[in-house]
Structure formats: C-alpha cells, structure tokens
C-alpha cells in the first residue's frame, strides 16, 4: 500500500501529465508551421497538372476546411481533438482523405515494430555482453580488436553503413532483395515460406541497425565496465578466488547494466517514430516514411497520430523501467 501511495500513484500521475503535455504540444506545433494543409492540397492538385478554375479556388478552400475539421477557433479544434482521442481516433488523414489515420498507421507500424524491436533488443544484448567482456578482459588481444572494430564503425554515418551493405549484398553479390518487405506475389497467409521471405527482406535493414546499434552499446558498456573493474568489490572477488565468469556476469555486467536499461527503455519507446533512413535506403516499409510524408504535406492528423504514439511509447517504457528497476538493482527499494 505504501509503495502504491508513495511511489506508484505519483509516478502514474506524472506519466499521465507527461502524455497530456506532450499531446498538447503536438497539437499546437504543427499549426505553427508555415505549411498550410489546405494550400498543400490545392498545390498537390495543380502541381499534378489538373486545372483548377481560379474562380473555384476560394470556395474549394472553404470546403476543405470543413472536411478537414479546421473550422472554428483553435480551442474548439483542440476540444474536438481530445474528444476523438478518447475514442482512440486520430481523425482522417488530410493527404489520404478520408482514410482514418489509425488505418494508415496500422499498415506501416507492424513492419517498423518487428524490425526495430528485434534489432534494438539484439543489438542491446550483443553490445552489452561484448562490451562487458571487452571491458573486463581489456588486456586480451581479442578485446582490443573488438574495441577497434566498434570504434571504427561508430563514427561512420549510418547512411554509409546501410548503403555499403546494400551495394555489397544486393548489387555486387545479389543475395538479398533491394526493395520491399516481402516478395512480389507473396501470399500474406501465415506459412514458413512467408516467414523466410519476410526475414530475407528484413535481413539487410536489420543487419545495418544491429551493426551500428551494437557498436554504440558496446562502447558505452565498455566505458562503464572500465570504471567498475577498479571497484573494491571486484578486486575483493578476484582475490577471493571467484571465477572470472562469475565476476564478469554477476558483478561487473549486472552493475554496468543499470544505465543501459534506461537507455533501452528510451530506445524501445522511439520505435514508434520509425527509422526513416533505414526505410529510405532499403526501401523498407515503415512508419518513418509515413511521418516524413505527413510533415511535408502538412497532414496534421497523421503527424499527431504518429507522434502521440511515440510519446506514449517512450513514457510507458520509462514508467515500466522505473517500476521494475528493483529487479535489476537490489539496492533500490520502494518503501
């Protein structure tokens, strides 16, 4: 009961306040942008070659305002927005009118979620284990080689790593596809063939993310561990004859993980923002492209839908980590 009152309840209230403020900011900011969705729609029509009678334009603007729900004061629009949001409805996309934003997100989100969830977790696990080992056994040659590789990869812009993999494995040695999330003609019914096909298409994007992600986690963990190994309890364990395996996994890596767990929570929350460069380089489906399109077309509702999901994702990730922290760090007690 004390835990609930003194810690969990304030923490949940804080969580809700963060989401409320974030959502409000997300509502206001797009409206401060110089791009006007109505004007964007008209420009889209004319740039495509269709001729709009100049005399019809003013009337058309009014019609679009009505349809897009942009009539009324900012406060009235804000009230309608919350009313809809409580029903889990972000409203219609402007650029894909009248398709609901949630429908568009649901087309792209699964691709992003699977790709980023797996790659984030894998690179976190691999990076932390290798970083921990390399930090503890820093005097070994293999540790120095691993560190060298990570230090070499980390500063390379992600775009170059991704493009390099693409050229190597999709062009020079064409063993992986260069576009899409599945082969042309694939039947989207659960089958072994479909799973293999999806893995093949996701392999290069995933590999690029894992390479860069692992090197980042590796370097930070290596740095944390290099401080931990100088701690008295490590020296004490070593002099007490505790095995290296025991020390590195139970004393060193476990202690080093604490800041990394917070980092993981934030990274997992950011899944909802997508991975725009990955999607662009590998032409891989995902929510990043959708977000970029929404910004460039002034599609407020779609922009808000994706950003709010991201806010909720990050806030939830941090809340969960805060709650389960004692599992990782026995020194923390909610009393």
């Amino acid at each position: 009961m004390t835990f609930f009152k003194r810690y969990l309840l304030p923490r949940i209230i804080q969580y809700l306040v963060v989401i409320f403020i974030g959502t409000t900011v997300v509502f206001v900011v797009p409206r401060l942008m110089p791009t006007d969705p109505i004007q964007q729609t008209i420009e889209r029509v004319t740039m495509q070659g269709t001729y709009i009678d100049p005399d019809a334009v003013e009337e058309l603007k009014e019609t679009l305002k009505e349809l897009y729900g942009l009539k009324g004061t900012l406060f009235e629009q804000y009230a309608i927005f919350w009313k809809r949001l409580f029903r889990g409805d972000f409203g219609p996309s402007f650029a894909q009118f009248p398709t609901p934003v949630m429908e568009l997100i649901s087309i792209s989100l699964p691709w992003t979620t699977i790709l980023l969830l797996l790659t984030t977790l894998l690179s976190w696990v691999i990076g932390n284990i290798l970083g921990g080992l390399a930090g503890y056994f820093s005097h070994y040659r293999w540790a120095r080689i691993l560190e060298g590789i990570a230090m070499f990869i980390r500063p390379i812009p992600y775009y170059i790593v991704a493009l390099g993999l693409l050229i190597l494995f999709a062009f020079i040695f064409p063993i992986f596809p260069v576009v899409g999330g599945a082969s042309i003609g694939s039947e989207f019914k659960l089958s072994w063939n479909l799973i293999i096909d999806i893995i093949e298409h996701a392999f290069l994007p995933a590999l690029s993310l894992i390479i860069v992600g692992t090197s980042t986690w590796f370097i930070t963990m290596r740095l944390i561990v290099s401080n931990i190994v100088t701690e008295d309890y490590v020296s004490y364990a070593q002099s007490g004859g505790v095995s290296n395996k025991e020390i590195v996994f139970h004393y060193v890596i476990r202690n080093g993980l604490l800041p990394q767990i917070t980092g993981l929570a934030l990274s997992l929350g950011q899944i909802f923002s997508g991975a725009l460069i990955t999607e662009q380089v590998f032409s891989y489906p995902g929510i990043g492209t959708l977000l970029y399109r929404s910004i460039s077309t002034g599609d407020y509702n779609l922009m808000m839908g994706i950003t709010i999901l991201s806010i909720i994702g990050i806030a939830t990730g941090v809340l969960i980590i805060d709650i389960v922290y004692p599992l990782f760090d026995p020194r923390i007690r909610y009393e």
Partner: protein
Amino acid sequence: MRKSLRVLLLGLVVCSFILGSISVAFTQVAPQIPRNETIIVDILGGRVVNPKRFNSWVIGVSSGTDSGIQQLMLEPLWCVEYAKGRVLNVLAKEPPIYNKDFTQMTVKLREGIYWSDGVEFTADDVIFTVETLKNKPGMSYNTEFNMYVDKISKTGKYTVIFDLKQPNSRFHTYFLDRWGACRFMPKHIFEKVEDPLKFDFYPPISLGPYVLKDVDPAGYWRLWERRKDWNRTAVGKMYGMPKPKYVLFIYYGAPEKKAMAQIKHELDMCDLTMESFRAVLQQNQYARGYRKDFPWVVNIDPCITGITLNNAVSPFNIKDVRWALTLAIDIVDTIGIAFDGAATMGALLIPPTPAYLRWYYRPMETWLKNFALDIEVDGKPFKPYDTNAPYRLAEYCKKRGYTVPPESQIKNVFGYGWWKYAPEVATKLLERQGFKKGADGKWLLPDGKPWKITITTGTNPAHPQYRNGFAVAQQWRKFGIDVEVKTSETAGTEGTYGKYEAITTWPAQEPWGGHPDLYRTFSAWRSKYVKPVGEAAIGAAGYISRWSDKKLDGIIDDMEKTAWDDPNLTKLGIEGLKILVEEMPSIPTFGYPGVVGWDEYYWTNYPGAENSYQQPYHHWPNFKFMLPYLKSTGRK
C-alpha cells in the same frame, strides 16, 4: 570464454549464409510471372501509403495515381499528346461540340467500350460520375461542376449533353487528361456505395487495357495484367494490343537504387538524375536515354523552367530591373552549370517543345529579332534577342567533349535562341533607375543600400529548379549583385504567400502541351487573380509572380470568347507572348530536361527522339498508348 566467443561469431556467420543461400539471386518478379512478358516501370510518386485504395475521385488525394491507376486503369474523354502536339480522342469519338454561346457542350462517346467486368461503358457512367462529384463536397471537380453544370443529360447511349450555367468555351478541359482530369466511375459499382468519399474501390475494375492482378500490402508495387478483352478498350481500338502481358509498377527508392535495378535489368523504364543515368549507361550496354546520344534528355516536356520574380516587391516591380536581371544572365553558362549543356533554352514563357516551336517560337522569330528595348546602344535601339545562343551552347558542349547533333538539328535540340548576355546594357538599365555600383564593385539600390537578392528554392539538388537557382545566382553575382540561395522545405508555401524575392518555381503556368491554346498559361496573370503579399496566391506557377497587365486581361477575355478550335487562338497567343516579352515578369531559362533511363534488354521501340511516336514518360496517363508499340526482344 574464448570458446563462447568463437561459438557466437560462428553462429552469426552461419546464420548469414543460411539466409543468403535461400535464394541465390533475387529477381523482382514473382515466379509465375514471366519476366519477358512483363515491363517493369518506376512509380514516380514513391511508396503508396494507402495501397489498397483505388478511389481517385477525392480532391487532392493520390493513392498511387501514377502506379497504374491513370496509366492503365482509367480513361479520359480526351488526352493531351505533347510529342506531336495534338489532342487524342479517347473515350470520346470526336472533339467536343459547343453551341454558339458556349452554354452547351455535346460529347459523343466511342462505342463498344467495356469495363473489365463485362459491363458496357455508356453515357450513364458519364452522367453518374458528374452528378456524384457535383453532389458530394470533397470529391474532385465538386466546386467546378457546381459552378458550371446546370444539367447533364443523354440522347441515346453514347451522347451526353452538358447544359452550362454560364458560358465556358473550355469546359471540356476538365475532361482533358494532362496528368489529371475528370475520369469516370463505373456507375454499376458506385451507385451501390453509401459514401463515395470513403469507398476504397478495391479490388478495382478497369476501363483501360489492364486490370489489377496483385498489390503489395506495404505499398511498394502494383502488378497489372492485360485484359483478355483488351480490344474492347479505347487503347485497343486506337492502337491495337498492348504488347506486355504484365506491367509491374514498383518503387525502388532513391535514384541510385533505381540505377542499381536498371543495371541488373530489373527496371525497364524509370526517371533518373543525370548522375545516376550516366552510371547506368556505363554499366548497362542495353541502356539508353530519350536520345541515344548526348544530350540524352527529354526535351519535349511541356514545362518551362526559370526564375519567378516577385513583382509585388521592390525593385522587381520595375520593368528595367527585370530586364537588367535577364541580360545579366549568360544562358550558355547557366545551362552549362545547371545541366552540363544538356537542355533546350527557351526565351518565351512557354516550353520549347517541337509543338510550341512550331506554333509560337518559329512564327515569332522575326518579331523577336526586331524587338528592341527602349534603350539605345551606339545610338541604336538595343535588340536583345540572340539567335546565336544555341550555337554557342553547342560549342560549349563540343569543348566539354560531347558529340553534338549536326547543325541542322541544333535549333531543335538546344532551342531557337535566348536573350543576349549584355551586362553593359543591364548596367545602363539599372543606372537610369537610380542604381549605382559601390566602391567594391557591388550594386547599390537607389537609396544607397547594398542590393542583395535571395533566391528561394527547394531542397532536392537533382531538381531543375534547384539547379536553376544556383546557376542563375552565379550569373548575378558575376554581374555584381550580392546573391544568396536559400534552400527550404517550405519554398512552395513561401512562394504562395509572396514571401520571397526570386524563386525557382516554374515561371509560368504550364500550357496544355498538346494544343496551341495559351488561356491556361495567361490566366495566371489575370488582374482579378493577383493577391497581395501575405495572402495565398490562387495557384503556384505564374500566379505567385503577382504581376498583371490590362492588355493581357483583354487578350484573356478575347480567348474566352474564342472557340478551342479557332485558328485565331494562336494569334491571340502570339499577342499575349509579345506583352510577356516586353514586360518580362519572370525569366524563362530552359525546357524541363527529363532524364529517363530505358533498358532495351527485354523491350525495345521506346518513343525516343529518333522515333517520337508518343510522349516518352511512363508516369503520364499516355503510357498506355505507348504499350502497343513496344517490341519484345524475346530474351528470357
């Protein structure tokens, strides 16, 4: 520990090989679709974010319109064909018939056209579409049809009569496809739909020669199959059987990825940047551009590029300043910087395509040569037109090591002429307006402040607009003006609200492309449509220059009273263009240089410059008219 590491690394390597060996080499066509019967083309508009939506009758919404909807699935009444400069009768049997005061339009439909589900296309579909669009706000052409259509009726199955609320000699242009038009809904499908705005129209039926076979749920491709009854479509009746059995529209991504795909023969037709096109040429012996040799680019695109000046802002509201800026540009140097010489210069605010050269550039040549500014050089009025400019451009290209076309072709390839590079005359024009040069050689405004021009452009470095911006900035800097190029994601919006000085948006509204009527182009400069700075302009190109002229208004009024097929339209066009030359509200530079890559490994007989039987783009609605002409090479 070492053992564990070895196991881990070995595991990673094995995983890579297992995944890699599942398929040795990837092909982008499904196994059951023969590659030699399929033409693979690029989706210009990118990934389709709403892949299972085929309803293209909602205003401003493109659910992959250029991924087959407009090229293979839907048909218009008429279609612009700019390679030859003509208008094709597609679903209409003949051009529109107007009554004397343009309050009634009669359309006669082609007979024997069927939807892909076997239902005949008739006047009922036309009437249903127009009435549905008119009655439902948010649908395309809703405002226009409410403004003009009083009543729509039929006399028999194949004749539609539009009674108009007010005279409109160009009402039919709403049905004239120029990368967009009012195309028709199948009445027998849409009449059962409760809300046509929300209806996805999936799977769609087709009026064109192909029908949807498969679609990527992630939005990267759409696969179309030739209809068995292709001979019951307009394309079949006009040109015969389209040769590819399948058409795959696919979005590979950035130009370098398209180049990679084309080098591997996995993409037959695509838009490229000049750099990626050169890479394809080097690595694919079957690749070609619109021209087989330099300058490769499509020079028949019905669009003129250039610099739009904000005539509502000082000093661009002064004609002498606008002309001084024009004469400070060396067009050869500009095209050299922007496209390494590979573009067709255009001195008028209309594109220098073969059709417009025939209709306007050539007939106006004598007038252009004699046209003089009201300023004297060596005691004679200064004549700014330079017929030698294309030959200078050809010389530049030769010096760059390119093989240029023979002299008889120079004008067709590089243009008829441009404005003289005359910085000394530009200086005189500015000086008589009170401008002077400072001690540092830079121009000062009449009030003594330094003259600084900001050119606003977009953020895509491969785009002709962007390249125009930097090339012209270089010219004006050389002339002594402090010029900054501002790249902005919101360049379009800044142009719309007049918050710019010079911008690289097209300097004029594109004309129809396949017809000499310039009403569409001139209307953008009509006095009643000019908006003050801070208020949104009605449209983009032309409108945003915020310039107008009473004489031009008169010409536009006369055009409205002149029938679409009246030869006087060209005369009115010439008179309007003369005003534009005299006033130079914005500066044209060169026709849009389209860079297309065509792979002749599986298919040949593309409409290249040597055999320009059709417009050359795969993203234009006219693509369907090209398909019956393609020839298979027989390669598997």
